[in-house]
């Protein structure tokens, strides 16, 4: 049989059965991974951001070891690439892209938005990020702020810790998490109230 011409679902079932029989990966482990992958959503990253905004120790942990910080929030990181977190400040704004393919911090943000894999986004993000953000997202980065484009080329996955917006003083974590969007955590937008 030519495997490249086999029906995909039959091939998948055959591979899964072999993995199970050979004791490499059990069916239960595959099911658990599928459930975790499908359940991953920007809401998970948002809970991390909100915690970092109210808890300086958590913020320090997040910037030092994103994987540990995610696990502390109950996010399944086993078998996932290490997570790095880059902090936006009054001096620097980060934008995440993967020019070589589509590396994305899926463990904490879920499936990437459709345009993230487009050749246009990838090319414009590295070459002219300021014009890209202004034209497509109305995100204008002040001239006094450095734009640092993070090209996710290898074994890490990167997410952005955005700046806490003014007008959120005294808010609790749940309320803060609700204003953090997917785009804020890869740097195409910034949180606002």
């Amino acid at each position, binding site marked *: 049989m030519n495997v490249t011409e086999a029906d995909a679902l039959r091939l998948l079932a055959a591979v899964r059965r072999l993995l199970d029989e050979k004791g490499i990966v059990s069916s239960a482990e595959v099911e658990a991974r599928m459930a975790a992958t499908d359940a991953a959503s920007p809401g998970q990253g948002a809970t991390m951001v909100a915690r970092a905004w109210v808890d300086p120790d958590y913020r320090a942990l997040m910037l030092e070891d994103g994987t540990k910080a995610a696990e502390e929030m109950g996010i399944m990181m086993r078998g996932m690439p*290490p997570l790095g977190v880059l902090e936006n400040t009054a001096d620097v704004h980060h934008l995440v892209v993967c020019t070589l393919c589509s590396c994305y911090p899926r463990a904490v943000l879920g499936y990437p938005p459709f345009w993230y894999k487009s050749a246009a986004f990838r090319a414009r993000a*590295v*070459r002219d990020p300021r014009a890209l953000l202004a034209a497509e997202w109305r995100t204008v980065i002040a001239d006094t702020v450095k*734009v*640092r484009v993070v090209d996710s*080329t*290898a*074994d*890490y996955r990167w997410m952005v810790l955005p700046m806490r917006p003014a007008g959120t003083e005294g808010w609790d974590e749940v309320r803060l998490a609700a204003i953090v969007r997917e785009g804020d955590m890869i740097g195409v937008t910034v949180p606002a109230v």
Partner: protein
Amino acid sequence: MFAAGETVRVKDAWPEAAGPVHIRTPHYVRGVTGEVVRRLGAFANPEDLAFGRPAERIALYHVRFQKGAIWPEAKPDDELLIEIFEHWLERP
């Protein structure tokens, strides 16, 4: 082994010209000089891994480049931060 803050140059190498390869070093940064931000760890060499060959673990660095060094029209102090494997880096 490179230290944080050290100046490094990405090799101006084009192995894809010689045959099939899998490379995690973007074209636009080959031959460009930058600065090591930190060592991220060591990971199996994707250039072997992609072909199912035994893959040695190689140090991976986060390297910072000035945008102006790559694209003259860019705002010069904007930056790119890229993961580069040790065997792609050299001392200028």
